[in-house]
């Protein structure tokens, strides 16, 4: 454990005392993410972890790195702003399905099409946990919660297909019950130059008695290789009602946002002191 490690260990990534419920799926996601970063030899000070609000959004508390535990649903715009501010750092966003697909749904769509080089890890438990068990955009039809007393009437959001259709350049789904595979997926996602969505099926042992570890173990179909076309990837997801596991689609061609800009961002270079008088006089010409 050192302040500025060059070869980081898991200890360097250890954050504050964890308060998730015992058995929470999010433990697996956190472990996989820390492992992926260590495997990639990325030290904590080169990582910005932005989260929204929710149980899952506590990752910046529990993982040591530069972190911003922000607002419910706003992690993606904050993270994209952070990438504009610090282009060379790894920006990783962690949050829940409510955070990302409910309140933050609009930002999600636009983040996908903007294709900034960040990694978005959605810890999908099909329920709003921190607020004690209301229905979420990915809850199954008929799901009974305190806000859907007579059963959920809204079909679950298929975030994978949405992301692929919206032009996502890296779309994957992991399972917090398979930390090894999830670690591999996250390594690939972090290395991907562009927006990488990793939806992680992450059971809530307290509020979701439908989407359980056993349910996933029984139903998940593994994807060995990404599909060559968006259409095939979406067809596969639809065929298996989203119960798939692996990297679904990768587009290495489309440039990430910063590359598409076509110039070098230098947003942190702000010289202190007097204003640049020559520049001032030059720009004043427009107003003379």
């Amino acid at each position: 454990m050192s302040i500025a490690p060059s070869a980081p260990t898991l200890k360097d990534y250890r954050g504050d005392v964890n308060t998730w419920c015992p058995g929470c799926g999010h433990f697996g996601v956190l472990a996989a993410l820390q492992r992926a970063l260590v495997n990639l030899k990325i030290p904590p000070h080169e990582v910005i972890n932005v989260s929204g609000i929710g149980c899952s959004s506590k990752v910046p508390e529990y993982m040591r790195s530069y972190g911003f535990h922000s607002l419910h649903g706003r992690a993606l715009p904050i993270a994209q702003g952070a990438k504009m501010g610090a282009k060379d750092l790894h920006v990783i966003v962690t949050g829940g399905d409510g955070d990302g697909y409910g309140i933050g749904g609009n930002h999600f769509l636009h983040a996908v099409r903007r294709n900034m080089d960040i990694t978005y890890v959605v810890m999908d438990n099909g329920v709003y946990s921190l607020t004690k068990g209301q229905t979420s955009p990915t809850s199954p039809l008929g799901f009974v919660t305190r806000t859907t007393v007579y059963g959920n009437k809204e079909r679950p959001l298929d975030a994978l297909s949405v992301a692929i259709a919206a032009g996502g350049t890296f779309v994957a789904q992991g399972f917090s019950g398979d930390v090894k595979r999830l670690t591999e997926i996250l390594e690939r996602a972090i290395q991907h130059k562009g927006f990488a969505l990793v939806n992680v099926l992450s059971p809530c042992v307290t509020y979701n008695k439908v989407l359980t570890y056993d349910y996933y173990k029984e139903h998940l179909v593994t994807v060995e290789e990404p599909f060559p076309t968006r259409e095939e990837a979406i067809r596969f997801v639809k065929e298996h009602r989203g119960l798939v596991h692996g990297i679904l689609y990768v587009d290495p061609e489309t440039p990430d946002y910063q590359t598409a800009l076509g110039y070098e961002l230098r947003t942190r270079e702000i010289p202190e002191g007097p204003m640049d008088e020559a520049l001032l006089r030059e720009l004043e010409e427009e107003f003379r």
Partner: protein
Amino acid sequence: MELAALEWKVGGQQGEGIDSTGEILARTLFRYGYYVTTYRQFESRIKGGHTDFKVRATPTPTHFHGDKVDILVGFDDETLPVHRSELKPGAVVILEGDGTKVTEEDGYTLAVFPLKAIATELGNPLAKNMIALGITGGLISLPREAFYHFIEEQFKRKGADVISSNKRAVDRGYEIAQEHLAHKVKTLPAREIDPNRLYLSGNEAIAFGAYMAGLTFLSAYPITPASEIMEWLAAKLPKRGGAVMQVEDEIAGITFAIGASFAGARAMTTSSGPGIALKTEAIALAGESETPVVVVDVQRAGPSTGMPTRHEQGDLNHLLHAAHGDFPRIVLYPSSVEDAFYLAAEALNLAEIYQTVVFLVSDLGLGMNKQTTPRFDPRRVEIRRGKIVSEEEAKALGEFFFKRYRLTEDGISPRPLPGNPYAVALTSSNEHREDGHIDETIEARNAQMEKRMRKLTGLRIQNPFYVDHPDAATLLVAVGSARGPVEEAAAALREEGYDVGTLFLQQLAPLPVEELRTLLVGRHVITVEHNYTGQLLGWLRRHLPIHEHSTAITQYDGRPFFAERIVREAKERIADEHRAERAHA
């Protein structure tokens, strides 16, 4: 005969080139050495609907485009009826019509010319505006070369034909003035050509000031009347490696800016009332997480979508209170185009120095209209980024979890930029310990709340307000673009023997209470504001025992103040106040 100043207005249907006609005259008069102030009125549609453009040229500086009109040019049927009441005795009204006819009406000269037909004859039907400008030039004895320069510049890319046809149109206008209106020709007062002057709008000044102060990132969502700020910067920021991003909504506008600022950029977002409303949750985030961000509000008429292209100062209450919870905020409101430049620069400094949200408030009148302004002084505002922790400083502290929210006496905690190897830290919207981790114990909460609230104590910007005749019995108090008409109203009142002074407030929060106490308490205060409820007076009352007879002159019709109305109302308020005093005694 000599005019004291020129007040000119052009009206017509949107899409007819009204703006460009006004802008050409304004720029020509500016180049020719006059102080020029303008006011554009338009509707929330692209084509059709009446629009007008006011130009006032004076030999001395002013912040006001004036109440009245010497020359009114109209290209539609609405111009004369809408603006007749503004005509000065002896004014000339030039209207587009079927034939040529000059008549003396009640107090003004009506001159109708078939401008479009004449322009068509000259080979360019679009040049009817140029004929009207030529007539204007002839009426005020402006050398026609003044227009030539402009035409050459403006139509450089369109080629020699367009340039010469436009010049011919201007010449034709001068001839028409000679032939039909020789008896109305006047001269403008002498002026001085001074190269140390600029002509720009409040929006341009904010964009320019922010750019000069090292802004590197702006994220926003388009809205009238604020969009021009992002548009100006969109062309400039990439040149220094910065960026303007038009993002999906106003929430993204501010949260992108907060993210960029957290990571080390100098960041700002711009909007108007409806967009500011959407930003409020993130405004509180800037407060709790202590992330610098500048939020520009160019106000328009509300509530809700209200009147999108009309003027108002109705967001003050919102900006002074916006968002949940208690946190320190800075609210600055320039009262001239010149100050818009300096306050934009100052706002970026203060956001980083105090690590909180800074509102830079403007209004449609100030934002979208241009004024002659002295050239900017680069020494007036230095670029300062506040307490950013260097690698050496952080290394010396040797903290595994850097104390991002260190308890300090001045309330400001040194801020690391991500990437600093020795300052790995957590920034948080939740209440936290010094190291940024969640902590809701009484000790942590109170210590952090008190630390945050401490940091603005004693904050004073360079010019928190401007005061003139501070010892007067009555003080007219205003913000933003109301400064222009209030200044002129006060001068007129003093000429009539009234004992009035003026105060234009630029630092609204934290309010410079102690200085204001000596100026305002015990004095009859009249605020002059563009809203229904007198929000500025309410804010002053909240901090100071403002005299009970103090009142607000309010206007909420979406149009700028006439100085004349302020004079009339101020006299009534002063008389009422005297009556009340006598009744008391």
